[in-house]
């Protein structure tokens, strides 16, 4: 039951803010931090007390505590705790201060929906919670912002609804295949029951279902061809909301994909692999093209996110030993994006622009944000000792061993292109000559604390991964290979 307290804390916080008007003025920000801290504490406790290899069903089999849910719960709880500290600092500056509670309530409800989605053992319930999260966060993209943000938010909503719609159609096709034309057979969406099935019924139905499910989730992850919402939404949203999209919601959707791929790969490994690799390769190619052309640092990181989603899709498509690399990459990716997007907010607040050409010598003007941005960029590019480095190496070596040489070559070329393009754009911004009239800025601790926290986690995971964490990652990787 401890695991439900991770969702109960933000839910209670949101409900308290909604029903007690006196709390709204002063307590919104403390409640946000407290709820996030309590959730993180319980998530870590669940992770620490769980026995290796165990799977429990805490509430009527609708929820499950296994290696995958524990890993993703911990990731999103860590990320959300950092976001809460950042939001506390930034809301102090916001002009619409009287509406603090609007942001806080929605953020808390969004997080609660994500926690429950991560713990779900029922595919349609998981879908419901992801849709709830989407509808909760969509208005936050344009909160206190102008027409461009409203347009980006609307685009996000459209693509999300269509993507999740495709996923639901896929699930229903699966149900139709399982149940037969006249409903002669039992239909289930419980993951543990689905894992015991030897057949999914009529092939035409479950194959269509499988294809639509992966396509729908690909849309939600920002994979090509339905990726165009992502750069707009990430660029226009406030930094904390971008981080919620890129590191919290992204991981929930990824977990949904992990569950579906792990389950369905045993029925048709080729279809899943081909679709994932095709979407991944096209995403990497398109994002590479946009990264080369990018003149806005936040948008550049948004395109790098598409690139990362593509790498994860390719790795997932490869299966087998690449799965461990994918899991490692996912953990690192969540922290890297959190560092970079929150730091982007600090940079934009100081310089008032997102244009790369207008910024030089960041590391001297804003030392903390500069260092965080630099380390985040290194991790983004897959430098050692970060987890993304090892993850990419494992995925690439698996490709070479599996004889996918064209794919291996393509990925190597695209990694080089991204390294050169990102370095050419961002390195002068970090180290370039500072204008003479530019003084060093004293950065408020609240705005940099979360980035420092993420970097500490990221570096410590890269330098030394404790054995319990490694075995958790291995357990998750094992579920991805249709076992």
């Amino acid at each position, binding site marked *: 039951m401890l695991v439900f307290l991770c969702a109960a804390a933000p839910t209670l916080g949101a409900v308290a803010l909604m029903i007690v008007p006196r709390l709204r003025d002063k307590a919104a920000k403390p409640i946000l931090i407290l709820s996030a801290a309590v959730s993180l504490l319980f998530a870590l406790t669940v992770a620490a007390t769980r026995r290796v290899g165990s799977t429990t069903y805490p509430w009527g089999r609708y929820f499950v505590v296994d290696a995958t849910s524990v890993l993703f719960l911990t990731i999103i709880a860590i990320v959300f705790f950092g976001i809460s500290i950042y939001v506390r600092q930034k809301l102090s500056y916001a002009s619409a201060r009287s509406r603090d509670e609007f942001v806080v309530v929605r953020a808390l409800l969004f997080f609660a929906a994500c926690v429950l989605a991560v713990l779900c053992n029922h595919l349609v319930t998981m879908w419901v919670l992801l849709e709830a999260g989407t509808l909760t966060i969509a208005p936050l993209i344009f909160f206190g912002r102008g027409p461009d943000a409203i347009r980006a938010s609307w685009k996000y909503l459209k693509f999300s609804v269509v993507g999740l719609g495709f996923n639901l159609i896929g699930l229903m*096709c699966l149900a139709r295949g399982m149940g037969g034309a006249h409903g002669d057979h039992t239909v289930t969406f419980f993951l543990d029951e689905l894992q015991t099935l030897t057949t999914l019924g009529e092939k035409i139905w479950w194959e269509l279902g499988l294809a639509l499910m992966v396509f729908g989730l690909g849309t939600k992850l920002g994979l090509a061809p339905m990726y165009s919402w992502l750069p707009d939404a990430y660029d226009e949203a406030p930094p904390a909301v971008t981080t919620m999209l890129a590191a919290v919601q992204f991981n929930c959707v990824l977990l949904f994909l992990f569950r579906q791929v792990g389950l369905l790969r045993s029925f048709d490994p080729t279809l899943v692999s081909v679709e994932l690799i095709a979407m991944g390769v096209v995403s990497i190619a398109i994002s590479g093209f946009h990264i080369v052309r990018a003149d806005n640092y936040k948008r550049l990181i948004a395109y790098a996110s598409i690139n990362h989603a593509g790498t994860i899709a390719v790795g997932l498509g490869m299966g087998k030993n690449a799965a461990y690399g994918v899991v490692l990459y996912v953990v690192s990716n969540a922290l890297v994006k959190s560092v970079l997007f929150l730091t982007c907010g600090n940079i934009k607040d100081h310089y008032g622009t997102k244009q790369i050409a207008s910024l030089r010598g960041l590391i001297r003007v804003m030392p903390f944000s500069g260092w965080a941005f630099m380390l985040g960029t290194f991790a983004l590019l897959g430098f050692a000792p970060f987890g993304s480095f090892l993850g990419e190496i494992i995925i690439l070596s698996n490709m070479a061993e599996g004889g996918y040489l064209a794919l291996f070559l393509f990925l190597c070329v695209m990694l080089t292109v991204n390294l050169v393009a990102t370095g050419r754009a961002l390195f002068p911004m970090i180290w370039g000559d500072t204008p003479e009239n530019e003084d060093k800025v004293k950065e408020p601790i609240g705005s940099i604390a979360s980035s420092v926290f993420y970097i500490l986690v990221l570096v410590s995971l890269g330098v030394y991964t404790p054995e319990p964490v490694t075995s958790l990652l291995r357990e998750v990787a094992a579920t991805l290979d249709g076992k």
Partner: protein
Amino acid sequence: MTNLFIMYLAAVLVPAFFPSWRVAVFGLGVQGLMLSFVLVVGHDIESPEVFVEFVCLLLIRAVFVPWYLFQKYDPKSIPRDFSLVGTTLWQRSLVISLTVAGFVMGLAMGQGDTRETVQIGTAASSLLVGMLMVANQRQPAAQLVGLVTFEGGVTLVELLSPHAMPFPVLLGVTAIDVFFVLTLGQYLARFAEMAPPGGTTEREGI
């Protein structure tokens, strides 16, 4: 049963050819009504889950959606040249082609079962025409109608399965339907701010 699908398809296609906000929203209400009738005819209404789903479909899709969207109506958000799919011959031909494509898919998937063939054809047509409205138009209000039409198609696919969802899941799906419409209302109120400066909001064509 086939008549219900014909009515449903008419509720999707008629608003596509009559460029009016009121007709479009009224069409969404009729789609909701037909969905609830399809549920009653195709499923065991005595089962509590099916009964609750029927009530929810009727109240939310047939009554609440059109009522709420009319309530949120703001002349500034709906352009005078409002159209769901455009008014050129090419755009209208595209709607008909997508409808035909939906039914071709229904024939392939239905495997000789007439009811299933028509239901899949209607659902696929609704999904494709809904997506066309979302993708082909720059008018957010038309895209909004397209999204609800797309969701109707998704529900029609849901109704293919003779098995009802378990009660907690059913309540979750219903809550999402309500939340979705309320969120759309929030956006409808902001569309006026999104309108591109001056002139028509429709794309020049494909």
